[in-house]
């Protein structure tokens, strides 16, 4: 295939949009500054439900590659093998104002596999790790990762109709997260509940930001 070469340097006269010549100022829409929060957790824990409950658009899905590391739990060899795998990631957004937009990215993690979320967490405010108490260990990779990355995170136990298999102290105990990591319960189906969980994430993010900016 050959494409028409595109001149890198245009004189103002040459600038065209579509077929009409339009001054730059009239065309330019300043985009909002995007900020993002990650919603992570095992399969079927309610990530998409969480994103959908708060998003102003119904969650969109995209496919992404993640580096995946299988870890010697069943096969305790010294070498860990790295592969890439395609995962479905969903996202939604909340417009804060004309100049600020919050994105939520729902991403799976899976027991016994660790995903590399490096791109995902770059610039992120923090993460909500969604937990289903029937399968607490599904969230270990996410907790491990965010802990290592120094990303503020909150553990949110999705109550699934008020059914809490364990109480929050038990969840905290099982996860062995630091004292300053909030462990809370929420209902992924309700906007107010998701909003409150995200506010706790933001509170953690604010602490980190103030600390970073204080010296």
């Amino acid at each position: 295939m050959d494409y028409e070469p595109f001149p890198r340097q245009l004189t103002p006269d040459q600038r065209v949009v579509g077929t009409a010549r339009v001054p730059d100022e009239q065309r330019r829409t300043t985009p909002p500054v995007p900020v993002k929060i990650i919603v992570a957790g095992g399969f079927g824990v309610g990530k998409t439900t969480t994103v959908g409950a708060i998003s102003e658009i119904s969650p969109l899905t995209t496919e992404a590659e993640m580096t995946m590391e299988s870890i010697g739990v069943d096969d305790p060899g010294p070498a860990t093998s790295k592969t890439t795998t395609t995962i479905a990631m969903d996202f939604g957004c909340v417009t804060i104002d004309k100049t600020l937009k919050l994105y939520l990215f729902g991403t799976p993690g899976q027991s016994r596999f660790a995903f590399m979320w490096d791109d995902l967490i770059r610039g992120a405010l923090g993460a909500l790790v969604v937990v289903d108490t029937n399968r607490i260990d599904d969230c270990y990779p996410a907790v491990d990762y965010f802990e290592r990355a120094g990303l503020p995170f909150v553990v949110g136990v999705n109550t699934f109709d008020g059914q809490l298999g364990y109480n929050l102290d038990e969840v905290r105990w099982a996860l062995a997260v630091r004292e300053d990591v909030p462990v809370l319960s929420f209902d992924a189906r309700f906007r107010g509940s998701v909003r409150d969980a995200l506010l706790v994430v933001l509170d953690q993010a604010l602490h980190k930001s103030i600390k970073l900016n204080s010296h």
Partner: protein
Amino acid sequence: MTYPGGRDHPRRDAAPGVRPFLRTKPAPGQSEAGDTNSTLRPFVITSGRVDGPDPDINMETQVSVHPGAAPTRLPPEKRAIVTLCVEPLSVAEISARLHLHLGVTRILVGDLRADGHLEVHVLGDDFPDPETIMRVIRGLRAIS
């Protein structure tokens, strides 16, 4: 450490065996770029490029048509991206709306930027400042 409660659920050991991943995982940032082209289709669309995507172009990064872009013949995927970005759009949204793999979208957006078709609104890697976070908090609180 004592375990609170005493029901019949299977118990897990507390530290440090609880989360067996702690010891084995490399720190974030150590994953290799360039190992993201394992499937055929993305490889074809991006003309076989195997270098990692531009780190400036993340999922939430805003992309819009370059005001000075001249109309030119583009392959279908690229044309579709340019058409969508008349209004600023995130890379993730472009990917979702066009059913394009995210990695492919990032590479194509990078190419379109290099060729002067798209403006990529690059943000620094700095953690957001307190004022920005406060604005998000106020904005979310206003949601009912």
